[in-house]
């Protein structure tokens, strides 16, 4: 047992398995990420990176085992965990028929913010979408969706940011901007869990690395 004063790990996996139908996406994974460190998830497509992030985000429940975020169980203390984590996923969580601004306002209202419209406006400035703030998301390019999705993540001001392929579908300038945002998150004390194929960029941003292969942790 660790010293009592030590904070709980930012992320802890205890013998975690997840099954979809008959396929095991994660198999008996155990891992612990200390607070103040950031984690790079690598592995081929289908190795279980997305599943792991969705488990931590409480979008899924593990079939076996336990996932904990800062000492809170992702199943039994789901609501606590949900307020602490934010997920940037392949699916953008954006309503195609609403405008960029409306999408952010809905989330701001759900989060109980005082001035939803102002918060949304500020974030649109931050991600550089002010010109298109009143266009429906359906007309957005993939890169613009990504930027709007990251605005959504920033609005939650999470303690743990889960980023699934944040650099995907971005041009070089976009990648650079994304790196800057991730650095800022880290500097403000946010634990970043990053899944990406761009290992170089990832290694520069994260101190720890977990390589997955067919749902199991292996040496990279």
């Amino acid at each position, binding site marked *: 047992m660790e010293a009592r004063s030590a904070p709980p790990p930012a992320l802890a996996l205890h*013998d975690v*398995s997840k*099954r*979809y*139908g*008959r396929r*095991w996406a994660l*198999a*008996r994974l*155990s891992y612990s990420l200390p607070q103040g460190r950031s984690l790079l998830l690598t592995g081929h497509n289908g190795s279980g990176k997305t599943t792991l992030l969705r488990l931590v985000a409480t979008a899924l429940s593990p*079939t*076996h085992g336990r996932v904990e975020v800062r000492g809170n169980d992702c199943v039994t203390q789901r609501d606590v965990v949900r307020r602490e984590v934010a997920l940037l996923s392949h699916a953008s969580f954006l309503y195609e028929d609403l405008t960029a601004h409306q999408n952010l306002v809905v989330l701001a209202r759900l989060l109980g913010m005082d001035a939803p419209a102002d918060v949304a406006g500020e974030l649109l400035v931050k991600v550089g979408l002010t010109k298109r703030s009143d266009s429906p998301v359906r007309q957005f390019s993939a890169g613009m969706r990504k930027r709007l999705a990251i605005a959504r993540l920033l609005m939650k001001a999470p303690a743990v940011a889960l980023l699934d392929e944040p650099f995907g579908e971005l041009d070089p300038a976009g990648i650079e901007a994304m790196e800057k945002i991730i650095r800022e998150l880290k500097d403000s004390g946010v634990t970043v869990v990053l899944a990406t194929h761009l290992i170089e960029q990832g290694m520069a941003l994260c101190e720890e690395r977990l390589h997955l292969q067919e*749902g*199991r942790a*292996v040496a990279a």
Partner: protein
Amino acid sequence: MSDLLKTVLQVGSAVAALASVGLGVWLGVKWAPPRSRVNARPVLLGMAALALALLVLGNWMGLVWTPSEREMGDVYRIIYVHVPAMWMAMLALVVNFACCVGYLLKTSWKTDALAEATAEVGLLFGTYGLVLGAIWGKPTWGTYWDWDPRLTAMAIMLVTYVAYMALRRFVEDPEKRAVWSSVVGIISFVNLPIVWFSVKWWRSLHQVQSTPKTVDPDMTLALRVNAWASLILLTLFLLHRYRTALATREAEVALPEALPTDVPGPNRASEVA
């Protein structure tokens, strides 16, 4: 038939049926799980023989021994098979409801497997009973289908549970299938009394269905013997369906093998040994 013999029949058939249910539950725990080593054959054969004997006896009583009904003549004799079938269908669906609630309270593949078994066997008995009811309707009402509230409600019930079975087939993921079908099972069961009352009102506002109550005590006895025989049959069917469902489920949800590189946890000692 003497009174003593009647009492023996009453008590004997009831004891036999209830004992079979007890044996069925015991087998469900001991024999149904995959890889169980309990030899169930003698008990199963015994139950089957008992069911057969009671069925033969009950049908003889129903067809030969009991008197004709005053108004319907011999036509009424179909109740000896129709009524027990309906009772068993209801019973199976009550168990199904209990399983659905149970699964949502405490996740277990056993309750899920039993829910699947009860829904299917309940559908089987229900369809059988419904067809018999329609056959009875032809000489009684002159048509196979008279929108009699009982039969109508039963038909709606069957469609409801066909939908339940369809849902089970259409969802691949075992956990999701179990949760969703439990939700649908609960809603479907709660709907049964509502359907019954609404159909009754719907019909009664048009015409009043009269069911003559001229029941001879001998008829009750014959009906009971048949019902107890059906109960043993129901237990047998459920047991078999439950066993296959449980085996399917366990195959679906088997844990991945631990790799040599994994650190064996304290709770995995049994698998290592």
